[in-house]
């Protein structure tokens, strides 16, 4: 393994973006093909990584390390383990699909696809790096392209796109300001303890921090990452943001970007600051319950498809948070699977909604009905996403939710039971929405709508396949994640509760 | 109280009174004349401090050139009733006075309660020579820069005072 496969995976989209910038703006087809090609190469490379990862060895593999800035202890360090591989796969899957979901973009194509590819690179970078500084660098790289994409290609249905974009940006940036304070404090403190500057996650994890310091920094991280993960009550940006954003951005945002929050909490929060995590986790769990129940209730009253999926994603993030907060092997396993599962599901949902909206110019549930007659393929996509969303066995989401509940039950009994009840609400609003939109009598006014065809099929095929394959054969994925979480937990020295699966 | 103390007190009183006149007079011409008196008082203080050369410079540059410049400018820009030409802001008079009072009292208290270090010797006999040695020795950079500064000021003042031509 001599050639830098992770760097290639990471920078493929960026290279694509640079190629696009050099193309003439009239050559829209060429631009789209470059974008698709770049993300496809990335996807293939990430599959190679997933298959090539040696599970018997475990730990962080495919390591690349170049010293970057000595006095900050920054190393350009890449590496993947069982936690980051699923998320890497998620990113490349959704990135590839997002390009196809945006195939019909006709305005400022060049800018759109360059920003989209930069965005994909940024998200991927956070999952691949093992250096705290580089992590944060990539973490914030994504915010600005999203803002620009929302204000330029977004839609102003219920809120204006300017408002949605700004709200999203400011929420995330304020969150990241707290995160940055925590990160700098961590850096300064570790330098005081170790005597040398280092941003390496492993080195930081081995550094002994006092408990009060850990609690303080973990609280900052919980706020920063929590905002990104739309933790209640810092979730307000998320539904508005998705509603305003163009399809591809909604897909990437709901599908992958939010997961950086969960990933950060696990990778940086729990691994480096286990003592802090133990103190703060119960608070997170209670807030997560707010996510699950509150967002599900809101969903029941929503009419706009994007808002429904937006709030449902807030609700689902509650499960992830509970999984993380329970702090045991099984629950964190579940959280990671859930992140993957929700990612593909939400992306598929948004791709379908985006396609429908593009053709019908409405997203109001009441306007639709019987679409299964005119658009069977689109309806299939909706069905897969919807059923996955309510956790139907056979879909990967079921595995995630189930594992979380099993794991969390050993830590928080009452809370878990309440959270499980959230599933009922989810089933309620998802089934109602699917029924109203897809089934029922045929409506004449939608006869002109064309079903998915050609490039539009790609998101459905790719993401749908991921949902179902993951659901039917969860063990390869589970095994991988278990491997990663296991070593992380032993690293953090947490109690290994459970081990039921 | 000996004679030199008396001289100091008299000069100080003249200087301060003249300075009060500068800010107190409502007519700017009176203020300017008061300023000249104040400059002269300061020059007298320099003589008492055995800084005769500085006293001369003060008289030539300040009481002479600067004052004349100011008075010329006043004559050029005098537009309104001269008795109203140097009024104070209605409101700023009060908080300006307050700030000035606080600054004076604060600094005065600090200065009054400080124990000053002992003198490290006595002033050189030939203070002009000593100044020249410094100016052309260690302080030559400052000296050269000051020369450029005067050049800049002169050229700049001409450009600004001449005004924009018809060209732009």
């Amino acid at each position, binding site marked *: 393994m001599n050639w830098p496969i992770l760097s290639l995976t990471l920078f493929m989209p960026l290279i694509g973006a640079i190629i696009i910038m050099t193309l003439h703006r009239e050559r829209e087809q060429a631009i789209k093909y470059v974008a698709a090609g770049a993300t496809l190469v990335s996807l293939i490379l990430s599959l190679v990584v997933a298959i090539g990862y040696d599970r018997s060895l475990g730990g962080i593999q495919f390591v690349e390390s170049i010293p*970057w*800035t*000595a*006095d*900050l202890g920054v190393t350009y360090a890449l590496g993947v383990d069982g936690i980051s591989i699923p998320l890497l796969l998620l990113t490349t899957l959704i990135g590839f699909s997002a390009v196809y979901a945006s195939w019909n973009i006709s305005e400022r194509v060049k800018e759109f696809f360059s920003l989209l590819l930069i965005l994909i690179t940024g998200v991927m970078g956070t999952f691949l790096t093992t250096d705290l*500084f580089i992590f*944060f*660098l990539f*973490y*914030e*790289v994504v*915010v*600005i392209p999203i803002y*620009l994409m929302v*204000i*330029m290609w977004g839609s102003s249905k219920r809120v204006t796109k*300017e408002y949605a974009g*700004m709200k999203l*940006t*400011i929420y995330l940036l*304020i969150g*990241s*300001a*707290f995160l*940055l*304070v925590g990160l*700098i*404090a961590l*850096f*300064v403190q570790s*330098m*005081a303890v170790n005597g040398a500057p280092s941003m390496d996650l492993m080195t930081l994890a081995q550094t002994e921090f006092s408990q009060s310091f850990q609690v303080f920094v973990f609280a900052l991280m919980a706020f920063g990452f929590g905002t990104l993960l739309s933790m209640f009550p810092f979730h307000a940006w998320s539904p508005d943001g998705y509603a305003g954003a163009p399809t591809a951005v909604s897909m990437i945002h709901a599908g992958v970007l939010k997961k950086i929050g969960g990933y950060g909490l696990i990778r940086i929060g729990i691994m480096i600051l286990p003592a802090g995590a133990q103190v703060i986790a119960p608070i997170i769990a209670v807030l997560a319950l707010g996510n699950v129940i509150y967002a599900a209730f809101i969903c029941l009253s929503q009419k706009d498809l994007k808002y429904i999926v937006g709030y449902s994603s807030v609700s689902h993030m509650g499960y992830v948070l509970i999984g993380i907060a329970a702090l045991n092997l099984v629950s964190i396993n579940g959280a990671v699977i859930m992140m993957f599962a929700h990612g593909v599901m939400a992306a598929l949902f948004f791709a379908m909604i985006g396609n429908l909206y593009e053709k019908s110019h409405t997203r109001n549930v009441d306007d639709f009905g019987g679409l299964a007659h005119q658009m069977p393929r689109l309806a299939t996509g909706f069905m897969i996403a919807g059923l996955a969303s309510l956790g139907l066995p056979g879909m990967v989401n079921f595995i995630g939710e189930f594992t979380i509940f099993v794991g969390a039950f050993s830590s928080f009994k009452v809370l878990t039971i309440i959270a499980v009840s959230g599933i009922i609400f989810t089933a309620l609003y998802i089934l109602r929405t699917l029924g109203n939109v897809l089934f029922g009598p045929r409506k004449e006014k939608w006869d002109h709508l064309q079903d998915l065809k050609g490039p539009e099929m790609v998101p459905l095929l790719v993401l749908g396949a991921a949902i179902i394959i993951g659901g039917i054969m969860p063990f390869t994925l589970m095994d991988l994640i278990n491997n990663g979480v296991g070593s992380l937990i032993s690293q953090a020295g947490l109690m290994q509760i459970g081990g039921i699966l | 109280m000996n004679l030199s103390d008396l001289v100091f007190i008299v000069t100080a009183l003249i200087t301060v009174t003249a300075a009060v006149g500068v800010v107190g007079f409502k007519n700017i011409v009176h203020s300017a004349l008061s300023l000249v008196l104040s400059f002269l008082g300061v020059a007298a203080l320099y003589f008492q401090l055995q800084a005769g050369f500085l006293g001369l410079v003060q008289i030539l540059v300040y009481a002479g050139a600067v004052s004349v410049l100011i008075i010329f400018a006043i004559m050029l820009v005098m537009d309104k009733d001269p008795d109203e030409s140097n009024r104070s802001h209605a409101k700023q008079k009060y908080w300006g006075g307050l700030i000035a009072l606080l600054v004076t009292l604060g*600094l005065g*208290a*600090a*200065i009054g*309660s*400080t*124990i*000053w*270090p002992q003198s490290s010797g006595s002033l050189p006999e030939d203070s002009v020579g000593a100044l020249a040695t410094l100016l052309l020795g*260690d*302080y030559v*950079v*400052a000296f*050269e*820069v000051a020369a*450029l*500064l005067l050049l*800049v*000021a002169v*050229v*700049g003042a001409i*450009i*600004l005072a001449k*005004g*924009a*031509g018809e*060209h*732009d």
Partner: protein
Amino acid sequence: MQISMLAPEIEIALLGLLLLVLGLLLPHKGRGIMGTVTFLGLVIALLLSAAGFGQEEALFNGVYQADSYGSFFKLLFILAGLLVVLSGSAYIQRLGRRANEFYSFLVFALLGMVVMAAAGELITLYIGLELMTISFYILTAYLLNNELSVEAGLKYLILGAISSAVLLFGISLVYAVSGTTVISEIAGHMQFQPAMVAGIILMIAGFAFKLSLVPFHMWAPDIYQGAPIPVTAFLAVGSKAAAFAAFVRVFMLALPLPQFEWGLVLAVLAACTIILGNLVALVQTDIKRLLAYSSIAQAGYILVGMVAGNEYGLKGVLFYAMLYVFSNLGAFAVATAVEVETGSTSIEAFKALGKRSPMLAAIMTVCLLSLAGIPPLAGFVGKFYLFSGAIGAGYLWLAFVGLLMSMVSVYYYLMVAKAMYIGTNDDMTPIKPDTSTRVALWICLAATVLIGVYPAPLSALAQTAIQLF
């Protein structure tokens, strides 16, 4: 003592004089080369300063310092001057006859900055400061037909004179207690005396005026708005960096006083400056004024590094000052190009710039985001250094204030981006800046991105420069 150690200073002074003479001698048509001469002269100065980097020598018994710290700032000022000349030449050309002297005033202002940064003694420092500010008074008022400009010049002069007087009174008290004005000797004669404390406070106030820190910022936005835009750019970058260079040298070397923690005073000033600068910037509608308030806030950030006073903090000061040159001048260069084309500095004029000139809009966005501290641009690394220093020195609250407000600042920077990308404009003709402006823009863009993704070289440079502390 070798005279060659003063080579950059001498070269700049000669350049200024040469420009004055050329302006008089050359026939009217030949004066187009003034910009070129200035540019070449500054390039030579840049090379001379770069060659001098790494020397550590006290000249004239410590009155003048030829050290890396000074050289770092010399490089910074000359780079700033070069970028201003490159991006401003189209603008300066419009001044007609007075354009010739404009260049020489710029060069003399630059000389003043250089002297300030290298001065090892307060008299020399003061003279450098005054050469710089007097040149700036004239430059600020240079649009003689424009009421705003002349008014700004007068306001600047009054403000500058007052602040100099306050600074000097402080110096006189420090001199009274310590008996010397050589920076390296003052520390040895340091005594905790009321007059010394008063002197330090007055000096802080004087420098705070020069740096337009809150609450001494009153007229700074007026001055920035009224001045010709290349002057505003140079003022915001150069004069501020020069004041910081002197401020840091004097306070870190001469005035450490364990009984009086002036760091806390500065911390409060920094916090107020960051908060007020950013909040007031939120409501601005003129790009010059917006950048003025943003520069006020930026000075607050740099001050944070000085408050910290440790290795990371001081390195942050130098690092940030340097990247600030590129990011801020990039933004100003775009604003200049837009003003040359449209005659307006209102944010309205930027509407639809993303369509008219995608490159200008992209560079503006990148530079503004760098100022906001968004990675992977230079500003982020700079803030990382500054706030690492602050947290290391125990000023956690200051880091909170600074980082939160820097995220708030994204709001107004993005308002400009929004105008550029989704606004509509009646005039959709592309704005095509001249070649020299384009060169300046590309330099700013490249430096802003490169320093952001690979900060190591600049950080090593800054590390060498702060050895003397």
